[in-house]
Each structure stands twice: as structure tokens, then as C-alpha cells.
């Protein structure tokens, strides 16, 4: 059995009286896509934000590649290779695609303090950036301002930025949201390739994509994981059908 890359143990987080994360334990193993599904408001994004370090859990612990990362801030976790995309795409609007990805390359290198050398002629930034732009399916769009990208392209830009972090794990929060049929299909193919770079914790509503991509699925309802298993196990699970798939179907 492989050591998991990412291991959450007994995470708990409440906002006032609302328990958004209720004793969640979960692992992400090398090479897998682990999908996290559940109705709106179940606490999926809140869980992702605890893993990235944007918010602190009240209880519980997170190990990443064998190291307890509870004490690290979000920037430090990103530099370890925890790469995330946001549910509402989040890029630097006035930067070009190239500049956005260069920013991520600079962040991953741990050196964002070079004051004098022009970034655009720094091959250590531009070359990896160009490579990841291509990898994410954005070839030819490097010079376009992020604010002018179509929705689906912005999603791909987030993937390119995640790739530039030299990721050891991806945390993708609803990457397909609002992509449309064709865009969704394209992105499914891209995500399927991403798995070879690093395992993916995939929050997704699009069940076709989840069933096509996932090795394992966890179902989150009211902050609790009610089931974890393979695609077939989850499809067959009566509790899941009742509390989640039933609604969706």
C-alpha cells in the first residue's frame, strides 16, 4: 500500500452554530483522482480551504507527503506543491496569460524578490510558463489579458498556474463549473492527463465527469463524509442515492 500524499484526520470547522466540516478524514493516494461530491453548502469548498491553509480547522490535522502542515500558512503550503484552483476563477485580471503563469513560476521558485531583472526576459520564468500554457491547452493565447479570456480559457489558465507550482497534489474546486458541454469534455481530457503529474482532489458537480475520471469518490453531506468508495460502490450505495444522487437524478 502506498503512503497517501495527503491525509486529513478528524478535521472539524464550525462557523458559529453551523458545523461546516464535521470530523472529516480522507486520503489522497499517489496517481489517483479522488472526487469529492455533495450538495451545495455541504462544506466542500470549506474543506479545500482548510487544506490550502486559507482557513484553520478547529480540530484535526493534515499531513502532506508525510509532513504535518498544520503550522504552515497558505503561501508555504503552495510552495510545497499544493496547487489549487478556485470555484470562482481567480486570476490576475490585468496580467496577460503569460504574466499570470510567470507569477506562479516565480512563486514556486520561492524567489519573488528579484528587483532589477526584467521578468519578461528572464528565461527561468518565461520558458516554464510557456510550457505550462501549452500543457493547459492555451497555446497562442499567451499575450492575451486574463480579463479578456473566455470563461473556459480562464479555467485553463488556472490549471496552467497550478501546473507551474510543480504540484505534488491538485485541489480543484469545481473546475467544470459553467464550462458548457464541449468545454467540459475538453477539460475532462486535460484533467485525465493531469493525473500523471500529481493526484487530484476533485470537487465537482458534473457527475458524468466524476464517473469518467474518479478512482474513488467521497460523498459529503452537511459537513460529514457519508461514504467513500469506488465509482461502482458509490453508485450502488443506497444512502448516497437517497441523500445525493437521488436529488441530482
Amino acid at each position, binding site marked *: 500500500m502506498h503512503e497517501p500524499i495527503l491525509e486529513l484526520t478528524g478535521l472539524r470547522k464550525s462557523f458559529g452554530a453551523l458545523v461546516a466540516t464535521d470530523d472529516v478524514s480522507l486520503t489522497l493516494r499517489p496517481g489517483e483522482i479522488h472526487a469529492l461530491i455533495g450538495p451545495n453548502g455541504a462544506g466542500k469548498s470549506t474543506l479545500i480551504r482548510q487544506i*490550502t491553509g*486559507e482557513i484553520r480547522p478547529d480540530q484535526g490535522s493534515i499531513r502532506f507527503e508525510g509532513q504535518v502542515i498544520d503550522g504552515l*500558512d*497558505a*503561501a*508555504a503550503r*503552495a*510552495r510545497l506543491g499544493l496547487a*489549487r484552483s*478556485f470555484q470562482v476563477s*481567480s*486570476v*490576475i*485580471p*490585468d*496580467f*496577460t496569460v503569460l*504574466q499570470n503563469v*510567470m*507569477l*506562479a513560476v*516565480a*512563486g*514556486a521558485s*520561492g*524567489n*519573488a*524578490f*528579484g*528587483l*532589477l*531583472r*526584467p*521578468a*519578461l526576459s*528572464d528565461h527561468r*520564468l518565461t520558458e516554464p510558463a510557456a510550457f505550462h500554457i501549452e500543457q493547459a491547452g492555451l497555446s497562442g493565447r499567451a499575450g492575451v*489579458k486574463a480579463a479578456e479570456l473566455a470563461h473556459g480559457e480562464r479555467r485553463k489558465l488556472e490549471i496552467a*498556474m497550478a501546473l*507551474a*507550482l510543480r504540484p505534488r497534489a491538485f485541489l480543484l474546486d469545481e473546475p467544470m463549473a459553467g464550462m458548457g458541454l464541449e468545454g467540459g469534455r475538453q477539460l475532462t481530457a486535460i484533467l485525465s492527463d493531469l493525473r500523471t503529474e500529481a493526484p487530484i482532489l476533485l470537487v465537482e458537480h458534473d457527475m458524468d465527469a466524476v464517473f469518467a475520471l474518479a478512482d474513488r469518490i467521497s460523498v459529503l453531506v452537511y459537513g460529514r463524509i457519508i461514504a467513500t468508495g469506488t465509482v461502482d460502490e458509490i453508485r450502488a450505495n443506497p444512502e448516497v442515492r437517497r441523500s445525493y444522487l437521488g436529488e441530482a437524478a
Partner: protein
Amino acid sequence: MRRDMTINLVIFGLLVATAIGAHLMGEGFTVTLATKAAIFGLAGVGLNLALGYGGLVSFGHAAFFGIGGYVTGIFASHAASGQPILTLPFTLAGSNEMLGIWPMAMVAAGLAALVIGALSLRTTGVYFIMVTLAFAQMLFYFAISWPRYGGEDGLSFYVRNTFPGLNTFDPIQYFAICATLLGLALLFTAVVTQSRFGLALQAARQNSQRTVAVGIRPYGIRLTAFVLSGMIVGLAGALYADLNRFVSPAMLSWHMSGEIMVFVILGGVGRLCGPVAGAAIFILLEHLLGGVSDYWQALLGLLLLAIVLFAPGGLIGIVTGSRRHA
């Protein structure tokens, strides 16, 4: 991009041409006005690094302007009196060498910016504005109540400090010094904002959540920008003190902070030469309208309001027809 560069050269060129033209026509006063524009422009360029590129709306940059001014005044007055400034922990003698005074002014302003920035950058938005204002006001009241260097009355030094090979009393030569430093500050800003650091600074302004998510901590980046910004403004303060051969608490007052901010907003936030254009227009208006009516500041206020509402890119934005570029 190319168009922006042309505009930057035109603005800087106009300032220099005005000074040279005035000099040739024997209009010493106009040369001095152009010198003031260069110095205020320099202060604006300094603030622009924090405000324009970093999104750090500091309402306390008079602190750095005043510190630069007081360092100059204190060195010059001690050079005149022959008394050392300090005897403990080491002996520090006065000086009237600009080349010696400028680094001191910049270091003092930079240290103040480090302290003020380290504390105020823990807040954002309106709180940041208020905290920076509060620090500058503290220094203002300190200067007023410190009789040793003139207190409320300020501190005069009768001889302008010296620069090797130049006669700093000749208006055009002093202009040349100020314009050269302004040019260097513009060059520095152009280089820094295109660097990795500049990328991170501008990213943190636009989307700090995303900047953190790629492993960059905005705090250190912003603090660095704030210190560099304070140092440039401190240098401007030193030049301003030498222009007037006088420093007073007014250099530290919130009016001064506001004026520096006006240069930036008038010319175009986050535009390289915006603050230079802003300072030049400000001085021109003050000169043309200040004599006609005491209410010229009200007119300035209207102009500012119009710019903020209808042309957020400032005067440079109006010319280039774009809001801002990264």
C-alpha cells in the same frame, strides 16, 4: 506600451525644456517653479510605487518627505554651527555635502517606512489610510514640540548645501540636480515594476488571494515597496529643504500627504510619469490661480473630482485612452 513610453519622454522633456527656456530668457523664478515641479514629481513617483503599483493608499507619506527635509536641515545647521549632531554612541558631525546628506535622508526615511509599514500593513482599506495618517501626525506633533530644531517655527539654514563641481545656488544648476534624480527615480521605477518583484507587487494589488495561492506572501512584497517608496519620498524631502533652505513641520502635515496623493491621482495612478505631470499641473494651477483667488484649491478639488469620476486613469489615461496597464 510604446505610446506610454513616448508620453513619458514628452512629459519629462517638457519639464526640462521649460526650465532651460526660462533660464535662457532670464526667468529665474520660472526655473525655480520647474525645480519645485521636479521635486514634487519625485515625491509623487515615490508614492506611486506604493499607491499606484502596490495599491497601498498611504495618507502618511508626508512623514518621509518631512524626515528627508529635517535630516537635511539638521545636517546643514550643524555644519554651520560646527556642533556635532551626536556625540553618543558615536560622533556624528554636521555636513553640507548633498552627496553625504541624501543617503542619510533616504536611510532615515526608509527606516521610518520600515517601522510604519510593518505596523500599518497589518491593516487594509480605510484602516490602512488612517494608521498611516496617524503615524505622520505623530511625527508632525513631535516636530512642533521639539524646540531644538525650531519647533513650530521651523528651521532655516542660510546656505544651500553643496554638490561637487556645481554651483547649487544657480537655479538652473540646482534644477539639473533635481531633474537628474527625478530621471533616475523614473528609471528605477520602470525597472522595478517590470521585475519579478514588480510582478508580485501588482499581482497582490489585483488579487491577493491568488497571489498567496501561488506561494507569494503579499506582506513582505508590500513592505519592500513601502520602504522603497518612503526612501524616494525622503530624497524628495531633502531636495525640497535645500530648495527653500528651510524646513518646518508643514512638510510633515497631512496637507503635504494629501498633496503628494493629488499629484499621483491627477497625473494617473500607476503610470510611470503620471505624478510628474500631476505635480507640474498642480504647480501651474497654484501659480496661475493662486494669485487670482484664494479659492484655487476649491477649483483643484473640482478638477480632482472630475478626474476620479470620469477619467480614473488621470491625465495620462486621457491621452492614452486606457485606464491602466499591468
